[in-house]
């Protein structure tokens, strides 16, 4: 019962993601221009990331701030760096723009993203 529900949720999420990625408007990210688009999987298997990425980020933020650990697969900056797309002119499109990577799922599931009130939405090379 639980597994069926889980599978159908996953299916729904996949469809949503595909649907989101399918739309490319002028001036927005070119499909396939992100580093992530060229990789098979994220820092962990995709299904795991879909369900648990926020736990990883939440755990990591404490570790980075309080313990100073920066060498990690789970940094938010790493996510942005990999998942940000470039537009037709070659400049980065903010990763939380509607139609970009994060919004793909977050808009569909209706969960608020608070990260980018403070964190950079494009890699600033710093």
């Amino acid at each position, binding site marked *: 019962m639980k597994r069926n529900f889980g599978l159908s949720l996953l299916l729904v999420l996949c469809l949503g993601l595909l649907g989101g990625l399918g739309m490319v408007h002028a001036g927005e990210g070119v499909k396939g221009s992100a580093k992530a688009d060229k990789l098979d999987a994220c820092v962990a298997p995709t299904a795991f990331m879909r369900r648990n990425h926020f736990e990883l980020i939440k755990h990591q933020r404490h570790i980075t701030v309080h*313990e*100073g650990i920066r060498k990690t697969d789970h940094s938010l900056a790493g996510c942005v760096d990999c998942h940000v797309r470039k537009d037709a002119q070659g400049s980065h499109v903010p990763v939380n723009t509607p139609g970009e990577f994060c919004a793909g799922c977050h808009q569909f599931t209706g969960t608020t993203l608070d990260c980018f009130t403070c964190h*950079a939405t494009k890699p600033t090379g710093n």
Partner: protein
Amino acid sequence: MSQPTDQPTNKHRREFLAGAAAVTATAIAPGVFLQSVADAAPRASAVTDDVRYGMLIDTTKCADGCNDCVSACDKENGIDLLSKPEGASEELWEMQRPRWIRTVKLKNNLTGRVTSLPMMCQHCEHPPCVDVCPTGASFRRADGIVMVDRHTCIGCRYCMMACPYNARSFIHENIQTTLTAVPRGKGCVESCTFCVQRRDNGGTTTACQDACTQGAIVFGDLKDPDSAVSQAMAKYPNVQIRADLKLNTGVRYTDV
């Protein structure tokens, strides 16, 4: 599901894994050794109190009218990316924009002698700002850096009331652009972090120290007797600002 244990593939897989582990270990080992000697790369293990960061300001070297340290800090920490919100008054914006470091010019009441010095978070050992924070967002890291965990900060500004040096800033407006290394957002409090983004990525200096052409700012590890800052502190008599509060600050000043 049980796996038969006499398949040839298992043996090959084991050999491959052992070989891969050996190669990886050989590749990593020198890096691990180097890591323990000097942080030349992103920090991979937690900070400890083996180190205490501190700073000595030689006020005789601080040039009158110079603001190089302030500009450098603004640039390093993304403060120069902020602009006055549309409709805000210039005067009010000057009082509301974040400032992690500022220069102060003093005159001795008796002798008239003028001193200039930069003022920033003093990174106290017993910070009043840490004591008063209701959520514990304002904290002192093991290596002595006093900073704000902006994930937990609720923006009550009690730490700003408590700071004897007026070192903290509250972000009064929506932030449009931030640096990846220095996130910043409306409604939280922040202050000088001794360039923690450099500390955690193998850097050894702070932006203000690098910018000061007069050599007035010396930064380093107070627990290392051979560091430049420890030697300078041993050589030049120096004081804490507001020493009567007994906060054991990490930043000391000469000739004040």
